[in-house]
């Protein structure tokens, strides 16, 4: 190997180390992580919205051909929502716009993530995994209402 090759390999190594550091730092300090994986329990297969305290909600979302259940989730601004996602049939996707919430709904499995809604508005949920003929109809939404109206 000549000098240039060694130089390039070192630079590449440093670049990869930087990327890896960024990933670890985001997960550790900013809590930007991949969805958590929860042991399966049949209770998650029934959709449910539970208010845990004044600004925390727990939502069991059941994805099925071709709708999300619940299709609409209403919370006040400043809420943290814990989503538990599973599927009643084929594999579905669960992507909340502008929130980088991105999970797969898999039969027999539960995916969990927690989202903080700091701005009011309507956040659409799109199924982004092909789930059959009605795939393109499969949407839901999170409606975050301004606090004052409550």
């Amino acid at each position, binding site marked *: *190997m*000549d000098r*240039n*090759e060694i130089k*390039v*390999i070192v630079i*590449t*190594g440093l670049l*990869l180390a930087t*990327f*890896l550091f*960024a*990933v670890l730092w*985001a*997960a550790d300090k900013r809590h*930007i*992580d*991949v*969805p*958590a*994986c*929860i*042991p*399966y*329990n*049949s209770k998650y297969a029934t959709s449910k919205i539970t208010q845990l305290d004044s600004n925390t909600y727990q939502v069991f979302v059941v994805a*099925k*051909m*071709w709708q999300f259940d619940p299709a609409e989730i209403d919370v006040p601004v400043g809420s943290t929502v814990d989503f538990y996602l*599973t599927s009643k*049939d*084929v*594999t579905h*996707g669960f*992507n909340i*716009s*502008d929130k*980088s*919430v*991105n*999970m*797969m709904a*898999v*039969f*027999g*499995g*539960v*995916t969990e993530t927690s989202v903080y809604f700091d701005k009011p508005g309507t956040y659409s949920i*799109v*199924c*982004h*995994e*092909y*789930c*059959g*003929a009605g*795939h*393109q*109809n499969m*949407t839901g939404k999170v409606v975050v209402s301004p606090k004052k109206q409550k």
Partner: protein
Amino acid sequence: MKISKPLRNVILFELFFPITLLTLGIYHGLMQTIYRSGLVHSAAEAHLDYYQGLTLHGVINAIVLTTFFAVAFGHAIMAYYLKKEPDIRFARISLIFMVVGTLMAAYAMLSGKASVLYTFYPPLRADPTFYLGAVFLIVGSWIAFWGWIILYRTWRKEHKTDKIPMAVLGNIANFTVWQICTLSVAVEVLVFILPWSMGWTNTINVALCRTLFWFFGHALVYFWLLPSYIMFYTFLPKLAGGKLYSGNAGRFSFMLFIILSIPVGVHHQFGEPGITSGTKLFQTILTFGITLPSFITAFTMAATLEYAGRKRGSKGLFGWMAKLPYLDTKNYMFGYLICGLILFIFGGLTGMVNASYSLNSMVHNTSWVPGHFHMTVAGPVYLAIIGMTLYLTSKLSGKPVRFPNLNIMVPYLWCIGILIFSYGLMSGGLLGEPRRTNLGLTYLNPASSQYRPDWIPSTAFALIGGIIMTLSALCYFITFFGTVFSKRKEEPILEFPDSELLHNEPTIGILNRFAPWVIMMIIVLLLAYIPAIMNISQYIGPGAQPFSPNNPVPMTF
């Protein structure tokens, strides 16, 4: 060199057959950009449903074309560089398996019984002929490989201390990975999916099947890619008018692919249950590892091309870029390969985004992902395949390429088309536009309550790119079929533009043997996949019944 008629015919058929099917694959590629842009608001056009066509597009372009080509190219490489032809019986049986498999899958897809996309995720159920067809195609490619192993071992005995020819090394490395990664998809299909799709078993472990699929699924992309890498290392330097900067860099890259191609599949599953974040993080690190051979290749190719440019009399730091033979119609393979390399810069870097653990949440399953992989599989892979298909067809049948001026435009037009197309898909993906979705029915339909006008520009870019790509493909089809159906003018010959090394390089022992790399591969594989499978047995509940894509009620038999 001369090539025997039987082997020549096998190779020529293996090149012709998938290109013929590709016309259908390209057609539905264009149709998808039309549906997705909202130009039409319909579920089907010309009796071909969107998702049925999408399945055809994926299976033909990404599985059939690539596998047939890898086998045909492998036969040619082994014969040319080892100066001895592989056993024709293996080549013939391999071809029969692959053709039968393809026809079975084509029947299932065209009759609308297999609109499950090329990933065939259960519990969506396709007709058993679809799965069996896939198995036949894959087993056919194994048989060709077994013939090469026999040939290689004979050669090894007679040339104990010789360097393995680089192309042979790349080809064996590629098929070693292929042989092992396809075992898991064979298990997925034969043990789990087939009995379940026939109604012999009631339910299927969905998460396990997905994991078995991705054990295969990411190695698959290197199986697509490595034939182009072989061309970059062995042909491109010569085509550019220079010499290869470092042969050992190439050998090392191919060996690294053996170790790291497979144990990275979980990076396709960051968003799903059953696999813990620790397992996901570990495979993130391995995925970063496999960018190393591509970075090495990028450097070696740049150094090689710079040398070629300077030899052609270029001046200054970047002058060499202007001196390369871009538009030489006699040297058209250069255009095909260089356009692929340019696309792969973007394809590779966007791939690192996908592999980056939580960053994946921004892009997973959005149209960003097809934006990325069209700059890899429809970039260096596709261009190297169609270019080399034309090259080999012309040489092996003794028919000079027809319409050389049309031909020279193909890669450049394609490159421009892909860049526009992928820009559209990726920018749309960042806005949340989903992949694999008939957007025209709802999201791009002003009459629908789901209408998303913010996705108009991105899907319009993809449409424009798609039209340009289709024009390029049309130019290619005219050139290819024009050449195939012309009269023989020269003696058939098997010949490659063989490159020399720039430096006098020593033989490095460990780069001249496969065994150490295969052992390391198996160790890393076990480290990466035992935890993944254990996670699934711990976190996943009951299995699923089969579902037709058209009905939310489980199928009964």
